[in-house]
C-alpha cells in the first residue's frame, strides 16, 4: 500500500468498514509512514471534535412560533373549506336549470368567489396564501445537480490550491534569477508578473482561470529556468 491508496482508504479504515486484509494493510502502512500517521491522527481528531460539538439548543419560544403558524394554516384551511362548500351548494342549486343559464350562473359564481377571495385574503398572513407545499423530498435530479456543482467547485478549488503551490515554489527561483538581471529587465519582470497575477485574480473559475494560471506558471518557469541554465553553465 502506498500513501495515495491509504489516503483513499483512511475513512473506511477508521470507520471500520474494511475487511481484515485491508485493515491490516492500512495498519502496516501506518506503522512505516509518519506522514500518513499524521493524516490518520488528524482524521481521528476531526471525528472526535465533530462528535463532541456542543448541541445547538433551540430557543424556548420556538414551539410557540410553530404552534401559531400551524394554527394560522388551519384557519386558512377553514376559509378554503367555506369557499368550497358555498361553491358546491351553488352548483347543486343550478343543476336543474337549463345549460346556458348554468353557464351564466357559473360566471356569476366565479365573480362571487373572486370577491369572497379578495375579502378573505388580506386577513391571512402572506406566507399562507402560497399553496401548502407537500413535504416531498427534492427530486433526485436536483440533488444530483447539487452534487455535481459541489464537486465542480471542489475540483476548481483543488486546482487553485495546486497552482498556488506551484507558484509559491517557482517564485523564489524566479526571483533569484531576476536578482542577477539589469534594473530595467527586473522592472519589466515585475510588470509582467503583476499582469499575469491580475489575470488569475479576475478570471472566472474554470477554463479561463486555468489558462491564466498556466500562463503565470509557465512564465515563472521560463524565468526560473534561466537560473538553472546559468547554474549549469549553459549560458
Amino acid at each position, binding site marked *: 500500500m502506498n500513501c495515495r491508496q491509504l489516503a483513499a482508504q483512511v475513512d473506511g479504515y477508521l470507520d471500520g468498514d474494511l475487511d481484515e486484509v485491508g485493515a491490516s494493510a492500512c495498519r502496516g502502512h501506518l506503522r512505516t509512514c509518519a506522514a500518513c500517521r499524521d493524516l490518520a491522527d*488528524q482524521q481521528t481528531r*476531526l*471525528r472526535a471534535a*465533530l*462528535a463532541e*460539538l456542543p448541541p445547538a439548543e433551540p430557543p424556548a419560544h420556538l*414551539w410557540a412560533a410553530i404552534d401559531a403558524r400551524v394554527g394560522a394554516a388551519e384557519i386558512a384551511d377553514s376559509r378554503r373549506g367555506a369557499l368550497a362548500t358555498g361553491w358546491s351548494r351553488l352548483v347543486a342549486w343550478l343543476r336543474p336549470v337549463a345549460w346556458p343559464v348554468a353557464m351564466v350562473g357559473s360566471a356569476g359564481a366565479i365573480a362571487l368567489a373572486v370577491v369572497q377571495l379578495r375579502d378573505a385574503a388580506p386577513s391571512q*398572513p402572506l406566507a399562507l396564501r402560497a399553496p401548502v407545499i*407537500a413535504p416531498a423530498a*427534492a427530486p433526485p435530479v436536483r440533488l444530483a445537480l447539487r452534487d455535481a456543482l459541489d464537486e465542480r467547485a471542489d475540483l476548481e478549488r483543488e486546482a487553485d490550491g495546486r497552482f498556488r503551490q506551484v507558484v509559491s515554489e517557482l517564485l523564489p527561483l524566479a526571483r533569484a534569477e531576476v536578482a542577477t538581471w539589469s534594473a530595467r529587465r527586473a522592472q519589466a519582470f515585475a510588470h509582467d508578473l503583476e499582469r499575469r497575477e491580475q489575470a488569475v485574480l479576475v478570471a472566472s473559475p474554470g477554463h479561463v482561470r486555468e489558462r491564466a494560471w498556466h500562463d503565470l506558471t509557465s512564465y515563472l518557469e521560463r524565468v526560473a529556468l534561466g537560473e538553472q541554465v546559468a547554474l549549469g553553465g549553459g549560458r
Partner: protein
Amino acid sequence: MASTAVSDIPRPRADLAAAAMDDATLIAACRRGDARAMELLYHQYKRRVFGLCHRIVGPVDAEEVAQEVFVRVFRGLAGFRGDAQLGTWIYRLAVNCALTQAGKQRRRQEVGDDHLEEVAAPPVASRDPRLSRRVEAAMAELPAGYRAILVLHDVEGLSHEECAAIMDCRVGTSKSQLHKARMRMRELLGPALAAERLPGGEAP
C-alpha cells in the same frame, strides 16, 4: 399574528402515556390534531432538527428554517405513508429546507459582495481558544451539501444507509461526499488539528 394558538382550542385527547408512545401512535394522534402529541413530537425532534438547521444555515436563519420544518411536518403528516422511519422523514424535510435556505444565502452573498469573497482571509487562521469553535468556523466554509452529510454522519452519528435515505442518494455517494467533506475540513483546519495531537501520537 392574531390567530389562536393551537393549544388554546379544544382538541381530541387520546389517553396518551407520554413516555411510552411508538411512532405510529404518535403520528396517528398528531394527524387527529392532538395538541399534546404534537408538542411531544416537537420535543422529541427539536434538538436534532434545530441542530441540523443551525449547522447548515448558521445561527441567523436557523430558527426560521426550524419553524418551517415543523410546520411542514405537522401539515404533511397526513401524507406521510410510513415507508420511511419518522425520524428519517423529518430529517429529510429538515435537510431540504436547510439546503434551500443555504442556496438562497449563497445567491444573496453572490449578489451582495462578490468581490469580497475573493480576498477574504481563511476564517480559521486566527487561533480560537477552543477546537470546537474552529471546527464550527471551518464547517461554515464547506459547500452546503458537504455540511449536511458531515452533520448527519459525524455530528449526529447516523449510518451511511440513513444518510443516503435522508439525502436521497446512493450509499456510495454518501460515503464519497463524506470523504471529500472530511478532507476539506482537514485542509481548512490544518494547523489546528495538527497542533492538538492525540496523546501518544500513535496510529489508531
